[in-house]
């Protein structure tokens, strides 16, 4: 009787673990801590870029003044040799980290993305190469914010 009960319980445990596993895998993919950070400093810390060195090899193409903060085009090219990832941080957004792209198998360290900006802010780019982080930033003025309603 006891043995049977144990078997059933074990079986239930295995099933539960099986159901939970894919959810956990998904959560691990998206860096909740970094994207949930409410200051640029915390966001940089959680992607391991707190000590990023300033670099002129990161090219940011973006408007000086964006009329509409809901759609601000940002184009980034990293000329730092061996760049493996590019992250985009809008320093004054409620959640500053906007995106992080990892490049493999011949992808060039380049990305163009439209972001929302709540107010005039520095947009900071982090490039990771050879285990080190490099950064550059550009100030973009916003006439109408794109985060509230």
């Amino acid at each position, binding site marked *: 009787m006891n043995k049977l009960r144990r078997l059933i319980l074990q079986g239930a445990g295995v099933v539960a673990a099986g159901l939970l596993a894919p959810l956990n895998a*998904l959560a691990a*993919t*998206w*860096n909740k801590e970094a*994207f949930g950070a409410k200051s640029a400093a915390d966001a940089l810390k959680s992607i391991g870029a707190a000590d990023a060195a300033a670099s002129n090899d990161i090219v940011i193409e973006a408007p000086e003044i964006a009329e509409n903060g*809901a*759609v*601000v085009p940002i*184009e980034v090219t990293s000329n730092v040799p061996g760049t493996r990832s590019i992250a985009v941080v*809008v320093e004054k*957004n*409620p*959640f500053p*980290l*906007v*995106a*992080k*792209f*990892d*490049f*493999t*198998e*011949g*992808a*060039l360290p*380049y*990305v*163009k*993305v*439209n*972001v*929302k*900006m709540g107010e005039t802010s520095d947009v900071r780019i982090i490039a990771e190469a050879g285990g080190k982080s490099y950064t550059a930033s550009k100030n973009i003025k916003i006439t109408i914010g*794109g*985060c*509230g*309603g």
Partner: protein
Amino acid sequence: MAGPMKMRATAQGGVTEIRVLMTHPMETGQRKDSDGKLVPVHFIQSVVVKLNGKTVVDGQISQAVSRNPVFSFRVKGGAKGDKVEVSWVDNHGDSNQTEAAVA
């Protein structure tokens, strides 16, 4: 829920440029609807680009990417007819994908 995606991949000078458009509301969780209620946060979290089955770009994004996101990526190499696939997953677990041949 998942709206249509559009993609164009063109090879020029040894580089394949991939432009992709996704249909998604990208709600920030801060916008209010006409009744003054907050619209719940709903956004794409993960974007993956593959060339001939190999992952070339693995991206994570936040709700601060604009509505109906448009991305451009560049990959070294790639020839006419190569297969490009782009997929996304949002915070509800919804997903979508599209594929196209390099032109």
